[in-house]
Structure formats: C-alpha cells, structure tokens
C-alpha cells in the first residue's frame, strides 16, 4: 500500500498461484511437479460416489504360507473405504492390496496413445509456425542467425512460461493452449504424421430391450459422478473407480496499478498465516451493529452502532447521509439520520487491558450522539425511518469519511523537523441490513 492508497473492492487484484498442496495429506508440491502429475496428489484418493476423501483400512485375511500351502497365516490386506457413503474399493471389484499406500492404480484410458500422438503432432506444428514467424520478423535484421535467435525465444518462453504478466492471458483474448508447449532444446525435428480421424457410417445399434428393461436405479451413476471421470464417464456404478485427489492452491494477490504485493500466504500448507497481509480491515474503522429496537414502518427508531478504530493513532470520523441519486445507493429501504458532529476514536492500545493506571482520555462526548466509549471503540446512535412496508430486511446506507495516515510509508527527510505524516481523507460507502420490520 505504499504506492497507492485505494480501495480494491470492485477490481479483483491480480491473482498468482503461490503453491500447490494436497488438502488431505498436506503435501507441498512445486508447480512443475504439480503440472506433471496433472494437479493431482499421488497418495490420496477421492470417493467416486460422494467425492469425499478415501481412507485406507486394513483387514486380516487368512493367506496360505508360501512355504507350506496347507497352513494359513493372517496377512494384512488393505482396501479403500469412504467414511461418508460407505463405498469401498471392493464394490467395484478392485482387489485388496498388500501394501498400505502406493498399490492403487487408476485405470488406463484406452485412447491415451492416440491423444499423445496428436499432442506431439500439434506441438511440432506450433514449433514450426513459431519458427516461421520469427524468421519473418528477423529476416531483415539478422539474416545469418534466425535459428539461434528463435531457439533463444523458445528458451525464454519455456523458462517463464505462463507465470509472468507478459504471458498471462487477458480475459477476452483467444486462448492459445499451445503457448506453453515447446520442444525441448536439442530434440530432432522428425516428421510426425497422424492419421486423420475416420468417420463411420454405421453406428452400433441400441440393444433390443432398451425401452423395456427396468432401470436398476442404484446402479445408475449421477451426472456429477459421471463427469468427474471424463475419461470413461461410466453409466454404471460398478465401474466407478476412485481418482486421485485434486490439489488446491494458495494464491498471492497484487495490486493492479502499482504491482505491490498485497497478500502473500505462508508456503507451508499447515500454516494459515500470511507473510504479507495488507487488508483493509486493519486500516479502516469498522462499523458494527450493536442493538436494533423493534423497527416499525415509518416510525423513527434508534439503532445503536459501534465504531472500532484498528490503527494506533487517533482517527476522526464523519458520517454523511447518502444524497439523492447516489450511484452506490441502490439497496436502501429506509431514511437514516446520522450524527452530524465529527466522532473521535482513540487509538488502539494493545496494552490497554493490562494498564489499569492509564487515565481515560477525555473526549467530551455529546451524550445524545455517543452512547459509550471504551478504549478504541465508541457506540453511537443513528435514527432510522423504514420507508417500505415490504417483507425483507430494512437496509440503510451512508458514507463514512475518516482520516488515514500511512505509517508504512518511508519517512521522508523533512527540513522542518518533525512533520507529522499527512492525513488523507477517505470516504467509503456503508450499507447496513437491519432485519425485518416488526408489525
């Protein structure tokens, strides 16, 4: 926030992926590895039926000893089970494994080979087109080294990938999904030919009893279950195989205008703290509703609100009602009269609870306006006159204007000596929902 003082409500700040982690085993993964594993965890599985995490359970089964087939000994067998819907891996016919983890495989997609071949072909095509473009661009400048230069640009693309701002796709621009693919340096450019897909005239006919066979409802998969496995999209519940769990990401936010880091979480998945956390709540006074009397249609009621000061210096707050035709005032259903005087909030003092000898600061509050004052919080009244008799909540809105001192900014060496930091006055729109009218 040192560059711009601006509220970023309506614009989403720039999102960047910070780290990948698995939500159940909390394993951290670098982005490259995550991309290789298709953003899935290697150890954890999701229930194909209810999408919860599967847990591994062990049973003892008698198994014949390898030396002496006539004697049996108890061996541990592991199977996957869901604690929520009680699905087990035995339901789809997956055999119990003898190792606790790592034994479970996802079934292979029968079309993998064809898809891989197609991807290779298009990678090569993209590569070739890129070379052509570079060659055309540089034909005038460096006619003797076009290949080397384009190898360099490939390197640049691969090195930075889609992470930088330059490569980030703007919303609305055509998606270039091949932008991240590029041949590794040194690979021979052999010709890859693919067979075009063949259209068939004859389609397998529907079975005879398609219309007459009664449906076994528990066996039919729901759309959600089906589409979670896009490879197979099984129609029967006995073909639902568990899939590896999706990874989640932690993201960091940047301001769009000055590219300053706003929010940067910790790298460790078990930690919920932030390395950098610049949130508006820690700078703007907070308005909270303390008590609401019975609201009556077109009768004036007094609502008690509190204002809390999150910063350590004294803040001055002025409340102003919304004017007619205010573009931000769309939801209010009641007229509101806010106190006209300026409210002074004491700074937040972390040691206030423990310091009993501290003198209470004398602010000379008007008892009609200020109900109470407690360290950095005051309670004040507003008058509300509901204007609409409809069902639904009474909503009021007003503007709050307060002074903000940017203490995080570097102190400029000033010639006048101790000049206090300049105060910037910020205005925000506040909307309160006060609940229904009681007839």
């Amino acid at each position, binding site marked *: 926030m040192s560059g711009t003082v601006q509220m970023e409500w309506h614009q989403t700040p720039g999102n960047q992926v910070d780290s990948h982690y698995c939500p159940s085993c909390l394993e951290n993964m670098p982005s490259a590895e995550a991309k290789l594993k298709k953003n899935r965890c290697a150890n954890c599985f999701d229930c194909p039926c*209810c999408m919860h995490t599967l847990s591994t359970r062990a049973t003892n089964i008698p198994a014949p000893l390898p030396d002496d087939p006539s004697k049996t000994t108890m061996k541990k067998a592991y199977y996957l089970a869901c604690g929520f*819907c*009680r699905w087990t891996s*035995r*339901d789809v016919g997956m055999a119990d494994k003898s190792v606790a983890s790592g034994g479970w495989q996802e079934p292979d997609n029968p079309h993998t080979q064809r898809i891989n071949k197609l991807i290779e072909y298009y990678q090569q095509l993209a590569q070739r087109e890129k070379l052509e473009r570079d060659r055309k661009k540089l034909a005038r400048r460096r006619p003797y080294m076009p290949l080397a230069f384009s190898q360099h640009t490939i390197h640049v693309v691969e090195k930075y990938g889609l992470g930088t701002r330059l490569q980030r796709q703007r919303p609305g621009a055509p998606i270039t999904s091949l932008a991240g693919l590029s041949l590794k340096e040194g690979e021979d450019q052999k010709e890859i030919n693919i067979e075009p897909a063949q259209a068939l005239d004859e389609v397998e006919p529907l079975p005879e009893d398609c219309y007459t066979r009664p449906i076994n409802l*528990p066996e039919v998969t729901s759309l959600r279950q089906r589409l979670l496995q896009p490879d197979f999209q099984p129609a029967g*519940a006995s073909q639902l195989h568990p899939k590896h769990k999706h990874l989640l990401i932690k993201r960091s936010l940047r301001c769009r205008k000055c590219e300053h880091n706003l929010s940067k979480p910790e790298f460790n998945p078990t930690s919920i703290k932030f390395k950098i956390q610049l949130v508006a709540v820690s700078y703007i006074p907070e308005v909270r509703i303390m008590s609401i009397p019975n609201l009556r249609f077109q009768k004036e009621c007094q609502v008690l609100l509190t204002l809390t000061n999150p910063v350590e210096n004294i803040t001055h707050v002025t409340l102003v009602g919304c004017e007619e035709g205010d573009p931000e005032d769309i939801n209010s259903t009641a007229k509101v009269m806010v106190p006209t005087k300026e409210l002074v909030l004491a700074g937040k003092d972390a040691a206030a609870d423990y310091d009993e000898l501290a003198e209470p600061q004398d602010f000379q509050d008007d008892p009609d306006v200020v109900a109470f004052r407690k360290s950095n919080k005051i309670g004040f009244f507003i008058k509300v006159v509901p204007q609409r008799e409809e069902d639904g909540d009474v909503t009021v809105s007003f503007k709050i204007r307060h002074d903000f001192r940017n203490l995080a900014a570097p102190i400029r060496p000033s010639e006048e000596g101790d000049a206090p930091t300049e105060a910037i006055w910020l205005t925000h729109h506040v909307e309160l929902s006060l609940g229904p009218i009681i007839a």
Partner: protein
Amino acid sequence: KSQYLQKMAANIAAGAVVCVESEIRGDVTIGPRTVVHPKARIIAEAGPIIIGEGNLIEEQALIINSYPENIMPDTEGVEPKTMTIGINNVFEVGCVSQALKIGDNNVIESKADLGKNVILTSGCIVGACCQVNTCEVIPENTVIYGSNCMRRVQTERPQPQTLQLDFLMKILPNYHHMKKTVKGTSTPVRN
C-alpha cells in the same frame, strides 16, 4: 389397552448390559448381549418393543413406539402394535427411531430420524442426520447418506460390532449401575 400399561417392568435377558441411567418405559424386552448406554431412551407407548440380541444402543438414542399422529391415546379399539428390532443393530448417539420393524445388522448413524412407516430390512445404513419418513421398505444393503438422502447399494453388509460390544460389556459395569436382568443379580459378575 390397560393391560400392557400395567406391565411396566422391562424384561431384560441375562447377559444384556443396561445402564440404570437409561430410561425404559413400557413393555420392553431386551435380548442378551445387548448394550444400552446411559441416557438412552426406549419408550413403549403404543405397544410393546422387542429388541433382539447383540444390539448397541448409544447415548441419547430414542427408540419410541408412539401413537400415530391423528390418534389420541385414549381412543378405544386401537390395537397395540409391536415394534420389533432384530440382532446386531447399532443405534448411534442421538438417533431417533420410530420404525416398527427393523431387521438385522443395520446401522442408524448419529442424529438420524426414522419415521413410523419405514421398514428396515438387513444391512441398511441410515447416514448421520438423514431423515427417512417415507412409507416404504428399504431394500437390503442400502446406504442412505448425504443431506439429500442419496442412496446407494453396497455389496456387503456392515460387520457386527462384536469387539465394541465385548469391550462395553466389560467396562460399563465398572462405572455404572446396571438394571436388573430377569435371571441373576443387578450387576453382572466382574472379571
């Protein structure tokens, strides 16, 4: 009608472990090897309840044979209907069961609610917080789960909780007094 109201004593078979803090009202028969935790409530209002063996009824579970909604308790000519509960069922904490017929090996999870017209066969699992108040027979090995009471069929029935039952039958008498069984004394012999 007045005959079964007078039959207040519960028939608790030998080998059942029923804590004194549980509330058992009316004509209730409890089979051997059944464990009834404290604060469980088994209320036979509109007819007797017969509970089989090997059942596990946990705290704050409510098994109630109540009158149908539109019939007052004093109406004449109302036949008392018997509620039958089979063997190896588990009634988890806080569940409510008014189902008149429950088979074997069922699990009624925490805070589930079974209505009066449901009939559970065997191997059914009614998930936590699921309310089942339809008028139907739930097929075998059905699992009811989720906030929308989705259903699926599982291939094997839930295992009987023998380990848990044995453990409880040993430990509960150490900390609670037991109700009197039909044959034998109030507290079973401790190991």
